[in-house]
């Protein structure tokens, strides 16, 4: 499952761009909002890519 730390996030928007079904951005400061913490199928693949691309290290993927 996805874990996101909005304190670490620098709001680059890579996650919302890469996996829009899984991640969104807070309207005030652009920090990460998780829409779906346990994505499946293609969304899970996109989410893994977003975790890899995240520039600040705010995202992690924990196998549960």
């Amino acid at each position, binding site marked *: 499952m996805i874990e996101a730390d909005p304190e670490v996030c*620098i*709001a*680059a*928007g*890579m996650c*919302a*761009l*890469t996996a*829009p079904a899984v991640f*969104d*951005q*807070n*309207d*005030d*400061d*652009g*920090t990460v909002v998780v829409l779906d913490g346990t994505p499946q199928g293609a969304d899970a693949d996109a989410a893994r*890519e977003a975790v*890899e*691309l995240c*520039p*600040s*290290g705010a995202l992690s993927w924990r196998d549960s």
Partner: protein
Amino acid sequence: MTDLLPTTRTDAFDPPAELLSDPRPLRRMTFADGHRGWLVTSHELARAVLADARFSSRQELRRVVVPRPSVDELQAGKPASPGFFIVMDPPEHTRYRRLLTGQFTVRRINRLLPRIRQIVTEHLDAMRRSGPPADLVPAFALPVPSLVICELLGVPYADRERFQRDTAELLRLDATDEQAGTAMNSLTGYLSGLIEAKRARPSDDLLGGLVAGGELTGAEITGIAFLLLVAGHETTANMLGLGTFALLRHPAQFDALREGRVSVDAAVEELLRYLTVVQFGTTRTAVEDVELGGETITAGESVAVSLPAANRDPARFAGADTLDLAHDASGHLAFGHGVHQCLGQQLARIELRVGFAALAERFPSLRLAVPPEDVPLRGDMAIYGVHRLPVTW
């Protein structure tokens, strides 16, 4: 010195051959100010350095990479000017960036799409009316991002002659310290006056919002305005100009884009990777000893991170030296990495997608109006690109 940063290009689109030919991902490099530091050329180590808080961005610790001033090297070694968050570390950096990030989200930028389409269409229509031939840089590549960032920030576009001149002067590597200093003071003076005017007369734009927010001083907002204005038009303008040149030199790729055989989104990522206009990359300075790639970077030593080399790393990108719009260029470092990754990247993406798609659609017979070797290249500027791009159709 033989281990300065290689800067001599032998091809319009490839980084300097010396930069790519050395297989070591990390090697010693002498900075232009004489500092003995390091050069990183692999994708893996570039990401590692840029994501590591032990490598600082603070201006006080900054070394000069190339032997000429550029916008952020003018003041290397001195304390950061107010609001210049790109040369600060967290938490100062975070405080400034957080005040801006809400304006640059994917959703917020997507809302600008109709206006960006309109600006692109108007400029392409005007170019068609006045040609052929035309110089694509002043007709299209420069004015589109310049107008977009002006409207977003709330900078009157009518003043463009002044700020475009100052910006160009700041990014020229052959400018003297005095010329660059004059341009910096001129642009700072202009923006400072603009922000005072917004204090008297509130405006519904990014700078007006910062003034109304009351959290920042006039000097801080001026610094932020300076960064966003310079970064907001020079980088995207050069991607549009150089990207068009690259597409004209790879006509099969341009056809694939026009005919919809590759998506414009993927095409833009591949052009960003392949061209990487921030040609001298970025630097960080170790604030403690760091083990990196089998070496010890000693506290106080600076590391130059070559973004163009990292984006051509064959270990990360198959066929790295080939422009192929169908490549999966995801993970490229054209916008950097770490907490300083480009604030305006979603805006840049939208401008480039709209710009290249419209150009391909509306000018199907676009071609160079001069031999390719006569296109003047910006090897002499901090941001790479073309000075002019004479085209016909």
